[in-house]
């Protein structure tokens, strides 16, 4: 008891050593994003290395639907926009708007996943499986990994939303939403690259 009391009295001494004034969770998130960048860089590079090397069909041009994918890309971009609004609202301690925007991000993310499920089903019906050809293998690994990231993001945001009902969330908790937001925006920029490199360039 006395030890605790003395700790409280001399808080400066008891504070753990920190090499940085930056919040640990946020720093960790950026380090994770840096590593995830390398991960996706390898996957996209692998897709390109095996591009046009499939011996049997279906080929990308037989399957890709650019208008559809443009819509899903737009949905994901707008979810990023809602994400910054949610963070802004929480920093302003506007819990109602925070909940509204966060729900919006989760819904838009789910819509994106719905597009992806539709796309995968369509491709599978057209005869593209993960072991059909090199295109199938590299495409499903790349976009599947991205889809898993989006799914994790949606679950994360929903869990934050639930948390906001279980205990009061204030502006000082914003860092937890901020790191979820960083993750979400990262998933968005990965899709920006995939949309261009995998989908659009295919039709040039």
């Amino acid at each position, binding site marked *: 008891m006395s030890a605790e009391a003395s700790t409280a009295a001399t808080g400066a001494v008891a504070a753990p050593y920190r090499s940085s004034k930056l919040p640990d969770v946020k720093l960790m998130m950026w380090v994770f994003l840096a590593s995830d960048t390398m991960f996706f860089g390898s996957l996209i*590079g692998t897709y390109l*290395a095996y*591009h046009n090397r499939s*011996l049997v069909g279906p080929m990308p041009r037989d399957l890709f639907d650019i208008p559809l994918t443009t819509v899903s890309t*737009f949905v994901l971009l707008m979810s990023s926009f809602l994400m910054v609004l949610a963070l802004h609202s929480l920093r302003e301690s506007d819990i109602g708007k925070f909940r509204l925007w966060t729900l919006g991000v989760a819904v838009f993310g789910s819509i994106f996943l719905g597009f992806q499920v539709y796309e995968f089903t369509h491709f599978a019906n057209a005869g593209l499986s993960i072991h059909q050809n090199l295109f199938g293998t590299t495409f499903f690994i790349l976009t599947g990994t991205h889809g898993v990231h989006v799914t994790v993001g949606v679950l994360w945001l929903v869990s934050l939303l639930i948390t906001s009902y279980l205990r009061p969330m204030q502006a000082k908790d914003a860092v937890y939403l901020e790191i979820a937001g960083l993750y979400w925006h990262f998933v968005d920029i990965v899709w920006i690259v995939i949309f*261009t490199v995998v989908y659009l360039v295919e039709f040039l």
Partner: protein
Amino acid sequence: MAESKHSSVTSYVIVALILGVITYIEFALVEYPQAWLGSTWTLVWLIALSIVKFIMVVMFFMHLKDDDRTYTGFFSSGMFIALATFVGLTAMFVLPRAVASTKPENVAAANAAHAEVPEALLENVETGGASRTPDQIADTPRVADRSVGITPPTASNDASTYSVTAPTTAAAGTPAAAGTPEAAPAQAGGADEAPAAATPAAETPAAAAPVEWDAAHGATVFNSNCMACHQATGQGIPGAFPPLAGHAADIYTLDGGRTYLLDTVLFGLQGQINVNGAVYNGVMPAWNHLPDGDIADALNHVLTAWGTAPAGFTPFTAADVEARRPDALTAADVHAHREAIGLQ
């Protein structure tokens, strides 16, 4: 405070609008190709626009613009390594092919190779060939089909051989060539020449010699479907894909081996197998989307192309394949079948 709140939300809205507009421009560049821009400049623009989107999201939505430089440092180093990986992979796999395809001698060789191939075959290849649905492929007339006509078995033969005759034009035009088979391909002009020359069986149709199957077609089917794994000479890839040369002929002579070979192609094979002392545990896909005749000819190719045909070899026919289809086995059933005929 109210001022900064207002301005940051405004900047978010502007960024989101710009991102949306850029996405539409990218879509429009691809969906409505601009002839004056050319594909190279379109590519440059697409990459530039996606980099702009990327940077805008990172700067404004992820707040790196105003945030601590440490974060930028971590993210940039990850980005740098990712880009280096990306550039390295491109340099190793994509660039050499792109460069090679522009060398004058390779262009000349490619054009020469094109010149030798019949127009109809080129159409098949350049329209995607295997990338079409099985139904479309089955509906497309094949080059080989035009060079030979197949007469159904008559009562006088044992129903396992087909009598093949030359196409009507060639047969009518070269009655004198009946005794000199070598003259037949020379007389058959244009598109039919290459397949006829590649087909020993088709060289003698004017002599009405009974030919058991279309060897050129068998080779074509094998090369476009089986060769990727089992290799052009049927050697397979040790440890990955089992050899066919010799091995298939050995299986053929086993009791039930003939049906097993057909089942393997038609229904696939899954499970651990042992071929010539090597263990394989891969997946042979089912090829039941191929027409009956293709499967039969490919099997005949496998059994005869790399050595002498097995003793008592009766060529597979489309009817053989058709007869097996109703069984609709699974790849696991075929594996059981394999064990039943005494193979490991």
